[in-house]
């Protein structure tokens, strides 16, 4: 069966520090991968999605970047965090070229102080 992992679960970082959140998927090949930010009352905002290794689509101009170094690994990064980067970050995967349902990870709660 497929599983999706995210770490860390929670993170507190100072403004200006770098960020690296990791997401890995097991039990499937060539998934579409997604990074979302979930804010209360604002649903899920799609940040990045990837249809294959090294292929990243950015949806919202911002202080973050994403990379997919391996088929089942998706990394969300920042060189210098801003206060506004605080939030709950979700990773998800989907099969069938991404047009099927998405499966979500447990999320990372990021607080930037």
């Amino acid at each position, binding site marked *: 069966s497929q599983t999706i992992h995210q770490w860390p679960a929670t993170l507190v970082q100072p403004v200006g520090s770098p960020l690296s959140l990791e997401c890995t998927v097991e039990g499937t090949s060539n998934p*579409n991968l*997604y990074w*979302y930010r979930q804010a209360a*009352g*604002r*649903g*899920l*905002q*799609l940040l990045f*999605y990837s*249809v294959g290794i090294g292929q990243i*689509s950015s*949806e919202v101009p911002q202080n973050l970047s994403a990379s997919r170094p391996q088929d089942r690994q998706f990394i969300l990064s920042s060189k210098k965090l801003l206060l506004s980067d605080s939030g709950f970050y*979700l990773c*998800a995967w*989907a099969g069938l*070229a*991404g*047009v*099927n*349902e*998405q499966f*979500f*990870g*447990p*999320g990372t709660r990021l607080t930037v102080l």
Partner: protein
Amino acid sequence: AQSVSQHNHHVILSEAASLELGCNYSYGGTVNLFWYVQYPGQHLQLLLKYFSGDPLVKGIKGFEAEFIKSKFSFNLRKPSVQWSDTAEYFCAVITTNAGKSTFGDGTTLTVKP
């Protein structure tokens, strides 16, 4: 660009009341449609989905949704809600050509016992 609009931000019902949550989307091409649910403290999970065929789809826990193409709508319904249906509900679309997803802002449902 695609967008998803959920009409109700917060719905409060008594047990046994009927539920209908509105969802409208905007996109010029073909999409697959989904409703996800997030119970308190749990991951997002799929409630039901529509790809093609019968526009009335049934999901888990007695939920159903109807796709009305002419109205670009995919409303969620349940004839009789239970206290355990208290959760946040998200409507989502995925474009079939690129696998790009868009979620609505979510509707918080509170069912009073």
